């Protein structure tokens, strides 16, 4: 009945198992390995949903309590950069999905192309983010570090934003102080998101090296598929961050 034989030392050789080199020994089949690791990645994404969930809860409460402060503070974010970043991430999601497709179709050249594009787009996102962050630093809008709410107590002191949003009234000092809360949430949420992007891009770099060695185009698409899930998740977080932080009210 059993096809395995027991050697003298008690170790067992599973003679009936001819499995590809990338199948780990505790799995019975490649299918099982793929299913299990895919499911594991989804569970990990669940933890990420709940991780960001705490921040979204805090945001929801603070935005509703301090709406005027949040509106005026959000005008400090450049909508051009924000929209560009959204576009960059959406396209990177597309290139990542195409990367998975290339791995499934065993097209190594295309896989490398799409992974590289995703990598570059990821870097572009971080580049734009760092431009935005340094702008915030220059304007003293970094909470806890070099904060000043002068731009909100007196919008005219910030001509570049005031020109775009002349309807913004000077805020009373206590409401103006709440703009720091907005920026804290801005930095916490986009910072946490950027951290996930950095991790993702690093793994992408590693994957590019492995892809060139042909690791993902022999039928073993698990790694690329699961990383793709992570990348799309990070994109989805941004899909929510963008309207919540940038598009509160621009009329």
């Amino acid at each position, binding site marked *: 009945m059993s096809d395995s034989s027991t050697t003298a030392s008690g170790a067992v050789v599973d003679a009936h198992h001819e499995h590809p080199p990338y199948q780990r020994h505790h799995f019975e089949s490649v299918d099982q390995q793929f299913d299990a690791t895919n499911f594991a990645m989804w569970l990990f994404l669940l933890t990420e949903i709940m991780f960001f969930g705490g921040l979204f809860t805090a945001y929801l409460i603070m935005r509703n309590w301090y709406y005027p402060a949040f509106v005026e503070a959000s005008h400090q974010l450049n909508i051009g950069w924000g929209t560009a970043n959204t576009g960059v991430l959406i396209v990177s999601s597309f290139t990542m*999905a195409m990367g998975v497709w290339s791995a499934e179709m065993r097209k190594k050249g295309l896989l490398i192309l799409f992974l590289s594009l995703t990598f570059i787009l990821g870097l572009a996102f971080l580049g734009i983010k760092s431009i935005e962050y340094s702008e915030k630093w220059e304007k003293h809008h970094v909470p806890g570090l070099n904060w000043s709410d002068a731009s909100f107590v007196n919008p005219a002191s910030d001509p570049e934003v005031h020109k775009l949003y002349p309807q913004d009234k000077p805020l009373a000092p206590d409401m103006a102080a709440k703009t720091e809360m907005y920026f804290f949430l801005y930095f916490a949420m986009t910072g946490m998101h950027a951290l996930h992007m950095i991790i993702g891009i690093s793994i992408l770099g590693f994957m590019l090296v492995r892809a060139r060695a042909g690791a993902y185009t022999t039928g073993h698409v698990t790694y690329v598929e699961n990383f793709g899930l992570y990348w799309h998740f990070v994109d989805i977080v941004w899909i929510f961050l963008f309207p919540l932080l940038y598009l509160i009210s621009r009329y």
Partner: protein
Amino acid sequence: MSEHKGQIGHGGQAEHDGKFEQEEVEHGEEHHIVSPVIYLTILGALLVGTALTVWASYIDLGEWQIAPGLTLFWNPVVALAIACTKMTLVVLFFMHVKYSTKLTKLTVACGFFTFIALIGMTMTDYFTRAWGRW
């Protein structure tokens, strides 16, 4: 017990032993390869959604007075609706959930459910307390 011809069966899904059609559906992941045309369509839809949500933020969409003291503003509703739609497209197509097993779909649903529970149940406190600055 079903014959496994010397190879142990698929992934321990033992309750489906012998129901091979079921097993094929279970492994929809690898057998169904989503075509790039669909990916392109979704990309287009996502970019359109982005443009739409930016455009909507420049317009005052008004409000709905549900009851005295209880107002619903349409701008955030529209923004979240567009974001949720984009998320759904990414989840279903880019993340292949549309072609995945029931377990994957259930897992995704559990994630959303718990997230909504966190926000919703916390709100039962905040909505019923003195609303405004602490």
